[in-house]
């Protein structure tokens, strides 16, 4: 176990380095720069700014400087949001996205697992059809449509829910619904198919032959086997959801990290692009390790190597 974790950490470092390097060169190859704007800035001012942030140096030199600083934990200042470090932006915005995203993932699990199981148990019956239709919609309908529809009905027509910000518990309802729609649908589908698979297994027949009651068979013998695909999916999904969604955050005016990814790219805020990308990559890798460990706990057949 310890050996496994050490190995995964070493592997993670290599992966993050590769992600960082690729991102660094790709973003620098894209035309444009952080100090271009509609208002003409004098060439002298631009040159001074570039000199200040080291953008006048050749690319490889900037790469080396960035990587050295990053290794020392210094991810630099934002080029656009003057006076803020990249770390402080992430530290300020991530908790907001993480709270909304975390609740959404929780909702997705709480709804998706039982509904998917019910669909499998009632295969071919009305409940199965209803759940399958919901699941298909959840996967097919894009989040901006869901956001707009929710906002139109609950926010504008009925006036039940606030449409922007996160000041109270009520404010969370619509963003959470919008964010959890897709993962709920996905988990339902995963759960349904894996539950169907498990229900046909020989050990389920053994459990019945022992004289166990239906509930015990389902919760003890079926669920633990059927949940494995969901575990695999939830790991990376959690990483993406807690780092925020650009669309949902924009529509509901949530000051989260999701927007930063996009605005940083559009504004060529090089240091912020690097910071958010490395942050997301690290989260995804960490979540994958967590998934592996959870997997090992749920299914003893799995060996961590």
């Amino acid at each position: 176990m310890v050996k496994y974790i050490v190995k995964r950490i070493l592997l993670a470092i290599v992966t993050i380095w590769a992600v960082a390097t690729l991102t660094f060169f790709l973003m620098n190859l894209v035309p444009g720069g952080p100090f271009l704007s509609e208002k003409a800035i004098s060439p002298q001012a631009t040159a001074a700014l570039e000199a200040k942030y080291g953008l006048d140096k050749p690319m490889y030199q900037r790469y080396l400087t960035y990587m050295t600083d990053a290794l020392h934990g210094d991810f630099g200042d934002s080029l656009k949001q003057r006076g803020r470090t990249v770390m402080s932006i992430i530290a300020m915005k991530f908790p907001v996205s993480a709270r909304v995203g975390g609740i959404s993932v929780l909702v997705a699990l709480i709804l998706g697992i039982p509904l998917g199981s019910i669909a499998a148990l009632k295969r071919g019956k009305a409940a199965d059809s209803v759940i399958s239709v919901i699941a298909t919609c959840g996967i097919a309908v894009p989040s901006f449509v869901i956001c707009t529809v929710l906002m139109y009905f609950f926010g504008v027509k009925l006036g039940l829910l606030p449409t922007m910000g996160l000041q109270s518990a009520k404010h969370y309802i619509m963003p959470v619904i919008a964010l959890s729609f897709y993962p709920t649908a996905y988990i339902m589908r995963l759960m349904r198919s894996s539950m169907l698979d498990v229900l046909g297994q020989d050990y389920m027949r053994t459990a019945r032959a022992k004289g166990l009651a239906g509930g015990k068979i389902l919760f003890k013998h079926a669920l633990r086997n059927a949940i494995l695909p969901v575990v695999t999916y939830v790991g990376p999904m959690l990483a993406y959801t807690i780092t925020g969604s650009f669309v949902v955050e924009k529509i509901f005016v949530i000051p989260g990290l999701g927007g930063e990814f996009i605005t940083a790219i559009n504004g060529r805020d090089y240091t912020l692009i690097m910071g958010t990308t490395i942050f997301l990559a690290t989260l995804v890798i960490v979540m994958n390790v967590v998934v592996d460990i959870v997997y090992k706990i749920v299914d003893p057949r799995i060996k961590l190597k």
Partner: protein
Amino acid sequence: MSEYLVDIKNEKLSFFTPAGEVKALNDVSIHLREGEVLGIVGESGSGKSVTAYSLMGLTAHPGKLIGGELNFNGHQVENMTEKEMRQIRGNEISIIFQDPMTSLNPVYTIGNQITEVIRLHTDKTKQEAKARARELLELVGINEPERRLKQYPHELSGGMRQRVMIAIALACEPKLLIADEPTTALDVTIQAQILELMMELKDKLGMAIIMITHDLGVVASMCERIAVMYAGRIVEYGTADDIFYHPKHQYTKGLIRSIPRLDTKEHERLIPIEGTPVDLLNPPAGCPFAPRCDAAMQICLREMPPVTTFDRVHYTQCWLNQKEEMEKGASHE
């Protein structure tokens, strides 16, 4: 209470599939005394397993019992609710399945899976159940039981797992053990060990066994009574001697001809039974075996043969046997 532990009378069972009604069992009657071993042989789809499962109330969807009586140990199984059935399953009647590799739940330890059934049917404490599980593992010949209890199924070999399945089945000392092809998935050497173990335990615990198999060798060595099933009917029933030395039904004769023998000459071929099993969706009007039978007569294709009895035990369902017996009777007069 009936003199029999198991007394199945005229069981009829069908699977109602979208394609139509599949008549899986047609007038199947079986009886078994305490401590007896009955072998049910027949090819795939002949209804061997369906008969046994229905006795446990484990008929798979969309199967439905549509007639007959199923008496087991004083219970009227056909009238019992699911809740009442659960009291019996794993307790008075147990089953071991064909494939030990997949019949144990991969995510729980052996100990957990054995104590589960003990705790369900007895009021033993956790500790007592564990002690009983250890005892059971010893009983089925597993070494280092203490260590095995903590192991998972994937850490054991196929033979070991089948021993564990037997331990689970025997945990509550059932009156009847159903063995559904218990050795089919195992190596030949392990097969012999498992059969020997079952016979040994039967003598020790005094339970009855229904042995379901398509391996005539297995029934020959174990069973006192043998039922030969074909297309959801018992076509011949008798003692092991009757079946192996005086088979009457053409199907039984064919089965026996298709077993390899020690005295078979070199290059001599085994004689297979030609043709394919009947389609139970559209069973023929007459004897279901008639289309494959060398000795089929006109009447075989038209009408279902009646039961021909030879002695107190041995009977067949075959027109040819009926005809022969009638001729014999006539010549005696």
